């Protein structure tokens, strides 16, 4: 097991280096320069001075080598759009709210989704199943900003139960969390329902029933655990995207999160921030994949990562 994890970590590092390299060269292909936001007013000499200041006048391979060495030492450089602010500070400052919001939405959404899916499967083909299905379809097909807008309008502006926006305490997280959790909830409910139905029809459940195992025990101990596999597969990537911020929800509720930063840094050719956010995303993504792989084994003993060799 330890060997397996070690090997995976080595692979992860190699993947990260490849991602960093590809991002570095691809982002240099973006049109424009980091200093064109102040527009046509900048003369060519001024731009030359700025390029020199940030080391952008050097040949690409040199820039690349410097960047990789600095990154290995944990220095992601300074932002262009926010004069001199270190990229690590920008990311860390803004990761907090995004991660908080994402985690809250994910946990509540997943739990509700699983419950909803299970109930639907147990009460298969009844009104409970149908309404849960309708809910799931709505949750998947309607984009979250529509919910966000509706929630904000009714709960904040019209009835004034919750504050319309900002990030100043638990009460402020309620509306964005609800808006954000609907999608994971719907996805989980759907997967859970389908899988549960399949699992419930399988031989070993029949056997358990025949042996006279209590039905709650069948549900939770045998059926749910196996049905969780596909749910966990989709949850992995979703965790990353939810926790690194969702542009629209953050903008609507004025949450100072990371989602918008990534988009804007690309628009403004803020190279260090593009690299920083991409690397953060990649690290999280790759780690989550590893965790998911390990979780498979824990949840379903039929899948064991260590295999026969070790």
């Amino acid at each position, binding site marked *: 097991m330890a060997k397996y994890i070690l090997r995976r970590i080595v692979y992860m590092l190699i993947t990260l280096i490849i991602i960093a390299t590809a991002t570095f060269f691809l982002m240099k292909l*973006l*049109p*424009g*320069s980091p200093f*064109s*936001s*102040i*527009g*046509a*007013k*900048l*003369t060519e000499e*001024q731009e030359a*001075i*700025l390029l020199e*200041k940030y080391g952008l006048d050097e040949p690409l391979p040199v820039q690349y080598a410097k960047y990789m060495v600095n990154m290995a030492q944990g220095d992601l450089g300074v932002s262009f*759009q*926010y*004069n*001199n*602010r270190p990229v690590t*500070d*920008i990311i860390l*400052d*803004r990761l*907090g*709210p995004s991660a*908080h919001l994402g*985690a*809250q939405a994910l*946990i509540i959404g997943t739990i509700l989704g699983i419950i909803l899916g299970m109930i639907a499967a147990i009460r298969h083909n009844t009104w409970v199943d149908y309404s849960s299905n309708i809910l799931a379809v709505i949750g998947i097909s309607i984009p979250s900003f529509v919910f966000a*807008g509706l929630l*904000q309008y009714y709960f*904040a*502006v019209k009835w*004034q139960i919750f*504050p*319309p*926006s*900002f*990030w*100043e*305490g*638990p009460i402020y997280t309620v509306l964005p969390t609800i808006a954000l959790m609907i999608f994971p909830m719907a996805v989980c409910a759907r997967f859970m329902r389908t899988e549960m139905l399949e699992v419930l029809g399988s031989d070993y459940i029949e056997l358990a029933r025949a042996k006279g195992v209590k039905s709650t025990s069948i549900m939770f*101990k045998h059926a749910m*655990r196996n049905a969780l596999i596909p749910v966990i597969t989709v949850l992995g990537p979703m965790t990353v995207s939810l926790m690194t911020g969702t542009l629209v929800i953050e*903008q*609507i*509720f*004025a949450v*100072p*999160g990371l989602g*918008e*930063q990534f988009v804007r840094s690309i*628009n*403004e*050719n803020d190279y260090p921030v593009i690299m920083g956010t991409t690397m953060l995303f990649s690290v999280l993504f790759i780690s989550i994949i590893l965790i998911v792989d390990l979780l498979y084994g*824990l*949840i379903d*003993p039929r899948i064991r990562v260590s295999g026969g060799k070790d």
Partner: protein
Amino acid sequence: MKRRNWLLLLSAMMLALLLVACSDNGDDTNTDADTDANQETTEGEEKVLRIASTSDIPTMDPIMAEDNVSFQYIDSVYEGLYRVAPEGEIVSGIAIKEETEVSEDGKTYTFHLREDATWENGEPVTAQDFVYAWQRAINPDNASYYANALMSGVVKNASEIYNGEMAVEELGVSASDDYTFVVELEVAVPYFESFAAFPTFMPLNQEFVEEQGEDFALAPENMLTNGPFKFESWQTEAGWNLAKNEDYWDAENVALDSINVKVIKEADTALSNYEVGELDRVTLSGSQVNANATHPDFKSLSETSVFWMKMNQNSPTAGEYMQNHNFRMALSKAFNKQAYIDVVYGNDSEPVNFFVPEGFVEHPETEEDFQTGSDVLAYDVETAQEYWETAKEELGFDEITLRFLSGDTDVAKQISEFMKTELEASLEGLTIEPENMPWNRQLEIMRDQEYELAVSGWGPDYKDAISFIDLWITDGENNDVGYSNEEYDNLVNAAKTELALDPVARFEAMQEAEKIALEDAAIAPIMQRKTSVLAKPYVKGMDSLNPFGNHYSFKYVDIQK
């Protein structure tokens, strides 16, 4: 049983993560509470202005600022030689305006500083602080855009220093004593007093700035300011609080106790916050303007930004057509400017036929507005068609396709679609092909002058018509339409040189120059923009926008409930 514990452990870990995130947030709320507690209450209820900003502050380093948000808050916490008061009037700041001496040739300004102005730490604000700040601004190592744009060719030796040919100490600024600041100019610059109020030229405390090094201005504790307000807190992308600076020399005339700014990027969210009473004032955008036009709190404020359509005479593809006067006249008069505003902005911006904004500068003697109006380039389809037919004969074409460069945002696409519909309907044989590009790419194309048609605008950096008039001088830095007229050039050069000390003749020369450029249809003016806001009636002193630099002067804003 054992395996279920694993699941429990996992949930526990996730919960822990949640709590960690929560406690981070808890800290944020604490700082807010502290801020409130620190504010001194002078007369009963606290006067707090609560507003929104569409972005975080890109920089609080005065010399690096180049956007309105930075300008706004630098102006609030710093004070330069002069300051801009409501209605665009330039008034005394650290320098006493009435005592300023200007040499006869207009090239030497001697500013006398007040002796009661201090930094937050109690040290006096001296002439050396200005010398240091101005030298720091022009230092090429700092690559300040505005220092070069405003100082080069104006302040003595500035361009040589910026190009690395001279040491910063050679800059034409000096302190003859602690409270006398002398500036030597290359040429007489009639609008130099605007510079004295511009954010780039704020004084800085050398010892403090050098001690901070790279951290300077990154957070409230990395700033040392001297203005009417000071930073209490600043949370990246969330917002910031300013509190009145009780030690400011003119503190008795600062009405607000604090300013509370929240970053809100979504216009509808800002409006919702206004409606529930979380904000005192909100800027409207897009369809919000029309939807709220009858709201009792609705106001429209004139900007000094003017927009026009550019017809590129240097275009490698359509240049030969664009160089034809009749061709340009036809294009300029063929689209409905009011409809443009209705479709694109939906607010009460003014359709205009000129390019130096209205309500910007006045005649030095009669105080009449620079802008007397013009209808040479007014919307008039019939006349446009006459010009068009003449152009067809002169250039020998029946059908032509022109490319219209625009951005890839919704608004930019509306602009190109609108222009296509209007121009094609008015001018027979014309096809407009919209080219929608990301902003950065668009700027590159404009700079390389490879576009054919495009819409663009200009806002001034100082209060003088030359900021606009200078745009279309032959081979000028910002002249990307390829316009060239000797008579125009002569008038503009005269205004910049020999007429510098004759305000009336200079003013009239610039008016004449604008007339020539309009008759030549150098560009096709569209509109002078307005900003629409909703503001609670108790917010006073924010009823007009400053003509340049920061939009408002919070020093003069009041809350009268």
